């Protein structure tokens, strides 16, 4: 039978029993997880020690939060206790022995010196020494655990209780981005289970306070259900790995592409008109991944970069491979495997590209120091065949499919692509379980087997490349690879992985050192991925263009690809008029056809496009490069100053064994003569004057001084070549700072939203109603819960009982609210004034909660 209930119900409090133990255990575990991760990712810190400290801090926080200890006293106790425990945790065994031996003086001296060093390091900003760092991290873990427990068990702030350690965990993981994601997801699972437990307790308390009967098992059921949902979410999160993500996306995109292609094919088959050029936009001066020939005019006197180099350099920004009749675009990100978009490759500072040895021997290193004066959207300018940069980079490269089998023990490691060498090397250096024991080869050593699995997973995740081991007929082990691999010599663009605005960086390029005779002998045995990518032509290209290309090479007697390229380059340089503002083709016309046969007036993108299209028609792989054309030395700026008007486009032709070689079909630029010393895009080198040499006479003398010709040097194979986002240390600090900045912005946005929402929560309400709402909100914050059965005045009295200094103000607010709501013929202005006055009084009276509030 329901009995009449008391009118005043005590505010809900957290129950320390029942489901509270579940939360306590989970909280301690989650703090321990944070400590273990921080310990594992920090040099010299022991994961188990850090986990213990964080969990102990959590338990200490719980214990103090459940007592009536004032906030400030509890914090002080915890801090002092944390210092002691963190000091003891540095070398616990040593301390134990010293304690047993009664060496108090030694202990005191040691810890005094540690503390002094700690304070000194903080003052000076120097790096911590090992022991001090361990102490600082241990103390931090202790305090984080304590704070999390305090916020949950004293304040009831479940979100912030899990968000604080979670944020630290994420920042820690961001420092080592290659590491596994399971700690973060496991922590999320803990946090969700804690949230479920806390929600169950809050509900139980709420119902109990109102005398509502409830199932005894409610708390357990709710927690079990919440934990199951959390486990399912974490499982799905773990399953949702990086490559799966891309595969899903790529499948979706390829499905869409197939549908679009099908529609397009149907449309084309039903139309007798030749295909129209596709819609590319922008001019080559934007250095984007597409441009339209004849679109706009790159201009501007504003300096873009200042370069310190050995001579006038072509600065390459981007290579483009696909011609659509109107312009060019890059599709290298889709190369290799149509089911998955290719990622960019991350390189550390000064880490060299993996250029094939046969190409390296015909090239020499050349370097330049580039100072950016205009933002370039992280795009780096490079010299010829890019080799390395002084800043961490993300390089978009071409990809080729791989479908190869290597016999372990019979394959030279140098024959194996560099990206597969780790796995093949491991297999060659390990022992296998004898054939017959298992269907597939297995490594004897569990450690080696684990390492093998890790490498296979890495290949699958990053590239993707699948690898399978099998027994050969002769009992040897074979490993079969399928998938795609990057071609490091085929570079579309190089990006800085950190912020580049106004940055100065150095790049090293490999400039061609081969002769014309070398290239004439190169032949036409192109790799499949080159012909697949760089012989593409759209249906807009006309037969007249094809005929002209054949006519040019026949008249020149050019048989080899090199001779054909030179013939077409020379034809273009001599038979057309250069005009910077030459436009594009009329609608539907192929721009190369229009340029060659109608307008015969063009600029660099017209010339380069025509050369590329005609060479492709002849079966010679060619691509377009956009960047900056060489400029003269500027003594005032102490370097080569490249401006917007120096934007340029030229062509590169592929020669087997030599790689990509530049050609200059635009007549306003000096032709590239490979037989001259210092050939290639590093046109006649000039020494860069020293910063002090700024006089005219000095410059003149220096120009006359030839620089020593660089010689080709053997290139070391990169120790590690990693996919962006997975390399140990790659993109590390900058990525972390970027991430931290973004997280700070996100937090600020959330905080701003919450602040705005709180500030405007009562907008539009009558003034006394709004102030009463504010009073209730303040009461909730202070643990004085408003209850439905309380009248405004009763609540104000309760508020005043908890906060005596606010008693008068609270009652004034409540009375004003009651008058405003229920009284008639009252002066609204005086009610509002009275209410505002009361609210200020109540707020000020309650503001002493921070120091000595007891619960």
């Amino acid at each position: 039978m329901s009995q009449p209930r008391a009118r005043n119900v005590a505010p809900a409090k957290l129950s320390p029993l029942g489901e509270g133990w579940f939360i306590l255990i989970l909280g301690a575990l989650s703090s321990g997880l944070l400590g273990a991760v921080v310990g594992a990712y920090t040099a010299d810190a022991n994961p188990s020690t850090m986990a213990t400290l964080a969990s102990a801090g959590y338990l200490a926080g719980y214990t103090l939060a459940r007592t009536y200890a004032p906030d400030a006293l509890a914090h002080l106790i915890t801090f002092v206790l944390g210092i002691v425990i963190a000091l003891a945790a540095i070398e616990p065994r040593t301390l134990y022995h010293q304690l047993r031996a009664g060496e108090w003086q030694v202990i005191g001296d040691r810890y005094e010196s540690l503390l002094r060093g700690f304070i000194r390091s903080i003052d000076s900003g120097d790096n911590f020494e090992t022991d001090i760092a361990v102490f600082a991290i241990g103390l931090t873990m202790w305090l984080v655990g304590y704070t999390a427990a305090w916020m949950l068990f004293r304040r009831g702030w479940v979100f912030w209780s899990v968000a604080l350690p979670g944020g630290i965990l994420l920042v820690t993981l961001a420092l080592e981005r290659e590491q596994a994601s399971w700690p973060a997801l496991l922590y999320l699972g803990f946090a969700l289970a804690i949230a479920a437990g806390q929600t169950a307790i809050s509900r139980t308390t709420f119902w109990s306070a109102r005398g509502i009967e409830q199932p005894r098992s409610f708390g357990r059921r709710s927690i079990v259900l919440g934990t199951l949902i959390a486990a399912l979410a974490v499982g799905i999160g773990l399953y949702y790995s990086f490559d799966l993500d891309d595969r899903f996306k790529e499948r979706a995109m390829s499905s869409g592409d197939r549908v679009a292609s099908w529609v397009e094919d149907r449309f084309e088959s039903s139309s007798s008109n030749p295909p129209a050029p596709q819609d590319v936009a922008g001019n080559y001066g934007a250095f984007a991944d597409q441009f339209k020939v004849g679109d706009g005019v790159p201009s501007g006197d504003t300096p873009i970069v200042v370069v310190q180099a050995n001579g006038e350099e072509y600065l390459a920004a981007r290579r483009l491979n696909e011609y659509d009749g109107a312009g060019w675009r890059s599709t290298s990100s889709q190369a290799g495997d149509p089911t998955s978009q290719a990622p960019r490759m991350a390189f550390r500072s000064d880490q060299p590209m993996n250029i094939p040895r046969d190409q390296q021997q015909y090239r020499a290193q050349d370097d330049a120091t580039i100072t950016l004066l205009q933002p370039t959207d992280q795009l780096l300018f490079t010299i010829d065949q890019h080799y390395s940069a002084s800043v961490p980079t993300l390089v978009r490269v071409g990809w080729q499919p791989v479908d190869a089998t290597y016999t372990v023990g019979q394959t030279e490691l140098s024959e194996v692509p560099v990206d597969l060498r780790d796995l093949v090397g491991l297999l060659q250096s390990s022992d296998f379980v004898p054939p017959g024991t298992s269907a597939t080869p297995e490594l004897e050593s569990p450690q080696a087997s684990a390492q093998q699995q890790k490498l296979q997973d890495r290949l699958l995740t990053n590239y993707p490349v699948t690898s399978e081991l099998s027994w050969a007929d002769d009992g040897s082990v074979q490993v079969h690879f399928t998938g795609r691999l990057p071609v490091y010599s085929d570079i579309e663009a190089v990006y800085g992985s950190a912020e580049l605005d106004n940055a100065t960086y150095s790049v090293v390029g490999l400039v061609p050192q081969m002769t014309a005779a070398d290239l004439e002998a190169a032949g036409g045995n192109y790799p499949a991925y080159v012909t697949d990518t760089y012989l593409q032509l759209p249906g807009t290209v006309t037969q007249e263009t094809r005929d002209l290309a054949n006519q040019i090479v026949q008249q020149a007697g050019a048989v080899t690809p090199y001779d054909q390229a030179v013939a077409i380059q020379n034809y273009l340089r001599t038979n057309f008029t250069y005009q910077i503002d030459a436009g594009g083709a009329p609608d539907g016309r192929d721009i190369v056809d229009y340029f060659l046969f109608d307008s015969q007036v063009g600029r660099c993108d017209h010339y380069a496009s025509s050369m590329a299209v005609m060479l492709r028609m002849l079966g010679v792989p060619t691509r377009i490069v956009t960047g900056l054309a060489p400029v003269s030395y500027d003594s005032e700026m102490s370097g080569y100053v490249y401006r917007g008007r120096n934007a340029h486009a030229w062509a590169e032709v592929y020669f087997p064994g030599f790689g990509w070689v530049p050609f200059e079909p635009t007549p306003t630029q000096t032709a590239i003569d490979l037989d001259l010393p210092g050939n290639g895009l590093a046109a006649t080198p000039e020494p860069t004057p020293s910063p002090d040499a700024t006089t005219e006479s000095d410059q003149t003398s220096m120009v006359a001084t030839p620089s020593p010709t660089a010689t080709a040097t053997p290139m070391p194979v990169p120790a590690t070549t990693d996919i962006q986002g997975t390399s140990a240390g790659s993109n590390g600090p900058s990525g972390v700072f970027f991430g931290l900045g973004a997280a700070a912005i996100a937090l600020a946005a959330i905080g701003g939203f919450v602040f705005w929402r709180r500030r405007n929560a009562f907008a539009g309400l009558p003034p006394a109603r709004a102030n009463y709402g504010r009073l209730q909100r303040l009461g909730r914050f202070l643990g004085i819960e408003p209850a439905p059965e309380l009248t405004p005045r009763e609540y104000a009295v309760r508020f005043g009982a908890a906060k005596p200094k606010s008693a008068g103000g609270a009652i004034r607010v409540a009375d004003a609210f009651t008058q405003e709501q229920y009284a008639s013929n009252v002066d609204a202005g005086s009610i509002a004034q009275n209410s505002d006055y009361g609210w200020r009084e109540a707020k000020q009276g309650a503001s002493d909660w921070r120091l000595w509030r007891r619960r």
Partner: protein
Amino acid sequence: MTYRSFITALIAAGFYGAGEGFDWPILRQLGVAVMVVFALAYLWSRWNISGLSARRDLDASALQVGGVLAEQLAVRSKSFLPKPWIEVRDRCAMPAHDASRVISIGSRATVHWETQSVAVKRGVFRMGPVFLRTSDPFAIFTHTRRVDFDDEVTVFPPVFDLKNVQLPGAQSSGGPHIERRTPFTTAAVSSIRDYAAGDPFNRISWTSSARTGRLMVKEFDLDPTAEVWVLADFSATQAVRPLPETERSRNPGLTFAEAWLDSSEDFVAALAASISRKAVDANRALGFISNASNRDFRAAESSERQYLRVLSALAVATSDGSEPIDSLLNREMRRFDRYRSPVVVTASTDIDWVETLEHATFRGVRPTVIYVDPQSFDPARNSVAVRDRLAVAPFEVHILDYRIGIEASFDELAGAATTRSWFDVN
């Protein structure tokens, strides 16, 4: 979208967006996990609230203050999924009655429970609505379904045995039948006759007309006993509630029902109901007049049905009338004579109404006064003048002292001190 769900969605989108932006799989995975939680929480809470219905069965539709109301509430789930918890919040208007409960329901099952409560306040109360509320384990989503009910419960004021109160009789009392025709409708039908032009239609006796085939009308005699007219004062000026200290000093031996009376308004209603009961029990014609904001007038009638009508009026009467009792008496006094005696129940401190009644006695009206002493509720309400005047008034007076309660105030012995009889004065 609730605040929690918005924040959760923001976190999921933030994680995933940051993961895409920074190309960091961990953030993407966290984003996906939070999205999964978001989706599952929504689906779970939706499933939990779907397929539910509720029914409530009352054991009575009317009772008196102090009575026990029992009801059975049933929640049925038509869903094949079990529901771990449903919060059933009963928002019925009846004070102290709350069938709220948290239940868990199995697949296609029904959960019943009975709730009993004491009726502590008179009035007409709607039983319902009931809100079925549930959410996911993280309280990201909360769904509520409202179930309305048409049932109403009427709680009448409590009725006490006013032992020492004697109903006023007519001056002609004692004769078996005075055979004196009256143009008014009375409780005593003397005969029937043929309809004559000008007879009011409400005098037609339809049963006799049917039997005789002619229109017949009823003729009335004056009742041999006087009609009892209860005048309950529900004017706003007389309303008074006890002070806390008065409450604490109250007689602890009160009857269960009286314990719930805590204002002069409740006492006026309870005493009016008690007088009405007494009149009906004595087969006296009962009339009722109140000066609440919705003025109530019930012509005298001698039946149980009339008693229920009066109780119904008293159940909802509140002290919100603007007309003082003196004004009511002046207006209605012409209605009373030696055959119609008013019983005035009031807590008014205005002395004019006493004078009005005194004047009425000069023309043979024999009023009775039950005075709910407001000073016994709140010492600040000075009723000394009224009580002094009542002490010498030429009619029967009973005074209720809130502190000692009804039973003691009206007890033959204990009440003697505060009761004066008409006959005593004479």
